[in-house]
């Protein structure tokens, strides 16, 4: 599946300032792996030692928080957009 990933400011050093990245992946987990292949080091910023999305990272597929979907198992279809957003904001 060809999907777009929005990269947040704190990670753009790793993506050489690319803000929107096009990748192929069938699930959110596969998308993270694919990102890691393209931009080494990015996965450990997003995923903690236990394999979960880091406490202060929110991930959205088409504007829905993946915790309301199937987390990293959330499946993707062509044209989906993944947003990675720092959790610490607002309030």
């Amino acid at each position, binding site marked *: 599946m060809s999907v777009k990933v929005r990269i947040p400011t704190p990670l753009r050093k790793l993506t050489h300032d690319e803000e929107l990245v096009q990748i192929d992946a069938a699930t959110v987990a596969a998308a993270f792996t694919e990102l890691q292949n393209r931009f080494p080091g990015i996965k450990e910023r997003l995923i903690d030692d236990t394999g979960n999305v880091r406490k*202060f990272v929110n991930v959205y597929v088409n504007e829905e928080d993946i915790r309301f979907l199937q987390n990293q198992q959330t499946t993707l279809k062509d044209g989906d957009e993944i947003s990675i957003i720092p959790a610490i904001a607002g*309030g």
Partner: protein
Amino acid sequence: MEKATGFMKALKCRECGREYPLTANHVCEFDFGPLEVVYDYDRIKIALTREVIQSRPKSMWRYRELLPIAHEPTVGREVGFTPLIKADRLARRFGIRELWIKNDTVNYPTLSFKDRVVSVALSRARELGFTTVACASTGNLANSVAANAAAAGLKAYVFIPSDLEQGKIVNSLVYGATVVAIKGHYDEVNRLCAEIAGKYQWAFVNVNMRPYYAEGSKSMGFEILEQSGWKIPKHTVVPMASGSLLTKIHKSYQEAAKLGLVSEAKYHIHGAQPTGCSPISVAQKAGLDFFKPVKPNTIAKSLAIGTPADGFYALKVMKETNGHADDVSDDLIRQGIKDLAECEGIFCETAGGVTVAVAKKLIASGRIPTNDSAVLCITGNGLKTLDAVVGHVGETREIRPSLREFEGLLEAENRSVNA
């Protein structure tokens, strides 16, 4: 040339401890942890004594060494130092020895505690050279950013959920801010703002300016301490949306003790949420140190944050201080608003109703013992959330301008009282 930083030393990640310069930046680029301002407490201890504080004007800036700006404040100089009211009639109604109301319903200029955080964020934004400010808001923050930006001559964009109370929408528009109403929950507004903040070089008070902004809440805690005769209250009940205010009240008590402004004492910080948006309260009651995000559905729209940024730290503070969280239904929120209004003559917004009703619950359950004293943080004014209480607080008695009709009304009233 070294730029002046006042009593601030750096920004520091709360998770990994990495330090960053004092710019508009809120997230650690390694683990996404929140950045927090580090102060030079040794210098502050010399500069800031009770005598110095008491010699200053009655505003939140009497504690300015503990607020994150490099120079004198340029926005919101009159904010804060709201009354701490001894609420004897409410204490009797709830069956507790002593209750105090920290009354930010009359905070200047926009009648909520948000003026505290905004005056810090905008003063700092100006120091950093910004001319456009913005926020993601459940209403009160939007009002405060719009008003304070207008007074400071800054351009303001405020982003709110489109279903907000009329009062809160008008209260942002009137100051000339660009008000963007998003079709969605606050959490969606917040997500969009995080993306906008990454793209436009604006000072988003609760996104890239958040380390400075959030510190402004400490002033409410410092005032409670000073107005309590420089003592830490045994119990403090705080409403929770993102959970930030609760963590900063705790921090203010700790800083004051560290600087010798108050004696160390055991205290409990309790958190209040509406049942229709209670991720932190649910987690606390289940003994968890993490929360599950929710989709909000409550009349307490100012607390309707389903993914609370500081939820994790709020849980930690309650655990450390042996505090409790609880949550209350929409009906109990309205009853809480009425209890405070009928007993103390203070009309608070729905978030205040949440705080009052949760305090009542904690007293009834013995979490706050009846022979103790508690401070309730009342953060916003009831005139802004009229929609939530219209039709629930009684009705007018309509008569023609006739003495006979008036006396008939009195008689009927006496009959119903005596019945």
